[in-house]
């Protein structure tokens, strides 16, 4: 085979692999992702669907319940509605009332039940200065 043609074939193979990877990325990401919603949106959605809930822990609402936690969350910019949350699993150090959290889970009988070890608490901001507690 002449070298020119050989190079072309190699290029086509490389591009083919790249395209396949790109298609796989696009395809799997849309099916594997979970939608992010705030508490007020979750309360008004269909129960049982899994969401990434992003909200703020209502100060003073955190109770220990056996190995798990129960607390309430509100939308990030406040709002009247709060949602009850039940969670068991790792609790990051910065977790407490007033902190923003992300938790994967679904609404069951009016309580948002978090999946084990999915609680993410935003690090206390290094670059904002308000004491948000």
């Amino acid at each position: 085979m002449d070298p020119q043609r050989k190079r072309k074939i190699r290029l086509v193979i490389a591009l083919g692999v790249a395209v396949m990877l790109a298609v796989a990325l696009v395809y799997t990401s849309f099916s594997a992702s979970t939608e992010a919603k705030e508490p007020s949106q979750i309360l008004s959605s269909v129960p049982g669907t899994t969401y990434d809930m992003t909200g703020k822990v209502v100060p003073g609402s955190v109770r220990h319940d056996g190995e798990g936690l129960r607390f309430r969350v509100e939308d990030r910019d406040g709002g009247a509605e709060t949602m009850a949350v039940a969670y068991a699993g790792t609790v990051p150090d910065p977790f407490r009332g007033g902190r923003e959290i992300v938790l994967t889970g679904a609404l069951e009988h009016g309580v948002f039940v978090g999946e084990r070890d999915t609680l993410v608490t935003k690090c206390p901001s290094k670059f904002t200065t308000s004491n948000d507690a």
Partner: protein
Amino acid sequence: MTHSLGSAALALAFVAMLAAAAMALVGRGGDERWLVASRRAVYAALGLLTLCVVLIEIAFARDDFSLNIVQQHSSIETPGFYKLAAMWSSQEGSLLLWAWVLSIASSLALYATRNRLREIVPYATAVMAGVGAFFTGLMLFAGGVNPFATPPGPAPADGIGLNPLLQHPSMMIHPPMLYSGYVAFTIPFAFAIGALAARRLDAAWIRATRRFALIAWALLGFGLLLGARWSYTELGWGGYWAWDPVENAALMPWLIGTAFLHSIMVQEKRGMLKVWNACLVVATFSLALLGTFLVRSGVLQSIHAFGDSTVGPYILGLIAVVVLGSTALIVSRLDDLRSEKRIDSLISREAVFLVNNFLLVALCAAIFWGTFFPLISELFTGSKSSLAAPWFDRYTTPLAILLVLFTGIGPLLAWRRVSWASAKRVFRLPAIAAAAVGVALALLTDAASSPWALALFAFATFALVGIGQEFWRGAAARRRLAGGSMPGALVGLVSRNRRRYGGYIVHVGVAVLLIGIAASSSFQTNRDVELRPGESATIDGRTVTYVRPTAAVDPDKFTFGAVLAVRDGGKRYVLRPSQRFYRPTGVPVGTIGSNFEGEQTSEVGLWAGFGSDFWTAVRPNVTAVKQRVGAADRGFRACVSGGPGTPPQCRALAAMMRAAAANPALMPAASRQIGALQLATATRIARTYLGDGAAATFRVIVDPLVTWIWIGGLIALAGALIAIWPTRRTRRRLATDTDLDALKEAKYREIRDAELDHAAGKLSDQDFALLDAELRREAVEILDREPV
């Protein structure tokens, strides 16, 4: 004073950077005076920015709360070491750090090239000084990020203090490491732009900046490692990587930087991949800026929430300028960027480098897509959806496994071409070892339950044995030539070929690190157990007993912990995990209960071993303690309110507080007395925790081989340092050499490398004869260029 002096220095640094860029462009035709002046302007900016940093540090050291930055990020009680490091925990301080490190790197680069690269340096100076002016200008004009800003109103008596979570030694080195890594990538980028602008597209710019790229890469990598270590030991969740956007943002430039470091060798030696290299360096620098932007802007949900800030849009603007400008420049120079040569054979080092580049870029592309998926999905579906760790793992795992295989294959092949027979000879031993380890692990352990991990162990074995064989054969060849002992020959080999063997050591480190990651992520056992004092639990064959609770009270925090006795086969050890409850910072006097409203940090109880780590964190049940504290606070309030029937000491306290409220001069003394009283009460209450017998929740993790992540990282760092460290001869040459000298030196090295490969048995006699003849012909061509 500091305010006006600092602001003036900062403004002058900005002017110096602008002037440097302008003068460099004026002198681009080769007018020496303008070039010297522009270089000196960059040095001047370095001096001025150094002054700024020193002023800020002095302000921190002297608790000068008349500066906003000090008031917001330090306090009188902040430990001295952290005061000095508090500068970069602030937005404005990290911008100053960016600009300062950039001025250091630019000055070094300009000093090293002061007699060389006449056509390229002016443009490179303009780019470096332009970026420097951008960051200094940001501090001056963006609003709210001037490090010398003063708080509105009179200077407060005390500052807010540094977040206790960040008071950790590795957290203090981690940000400047990452920053320096990001910043140092500016240098290769600037010289690449210079080379494109001046149409000097041979490997001269690469030779001049390769070391900077390597330093940037090492700093960024070490910064990532420190961040992972901090997360593992400080954050109380036992993990070291979470595919969080900000982590990804630092990993992406590192991956593309890794690809760049490999592919520039192909351009250096073969004159190929010029467009590719230009694209990689632009991508690396853009990703470094993107990392800076992500940290600042709050576009993506991240656990590293640094809050929305004013500088985000400006950085985005700079990224746009960099990407669009560089792309236009590359497209306009496509004709000059033609490869001088073609790849001779698929069994050659350059072919392996191509594959490795493809894998690294694919890895980065997958991570990029996953990181920005929330924005992408919002664009198409209208709702922000995010991807979790399993999605990332699905792509990164197979790519990392292939990468580790090529980490082993690359060093075994020589440049240009290797005959199939010599390839078989060098591959035999590593392949047999990999197969043996794979089979043994599958039969003797439960490694087969995770096929990916098993594949990685086998491939990593291949890489380690292959590189070990390289060292062995190289040292043996050197011993035949120079005599002496085998260890002596090994040292001589490495110190005479630092770039090559330093690189191999990096490969060893990466293979070891990936073994640690694969083992600890695939075969980890973690459990949450609730134990009362005296109770035991068995986790993965280790019996852990909650011996007794512990409690301590300090002026700034309560600590509740546990003493755990662990029996692991014949080994016994004691761990003391605890949780700290910090008083909120920046509040003068609160209630005792306010301790439960501040930050909480876990102090991990860790038994680190080469086989596996036993990691424990405790979540004490402090409900009863909180109730008693609440009662004490209520009692204190009732006492000082001075109602009927209050005891006399309460009345004295109430009188003191009234007096302090009326006369601020008495306040410190009153605060001290109340503080002491509260401390005594708190200590008494904390002791009751010891007798409560309350159950505590323990998170227990048995993490196999996790220590090898840190060891592998340090090995890689050591390798990078060996590759960076110049020999005495290169140090001398850097100062005096012309471009032609550098070219000759590079070709001479290539000839020596081929000789070494031949002596080490990597090239057969026939391969070597062909290659040597080619190289000598090329060397003669270079010599012919010498002006007579």
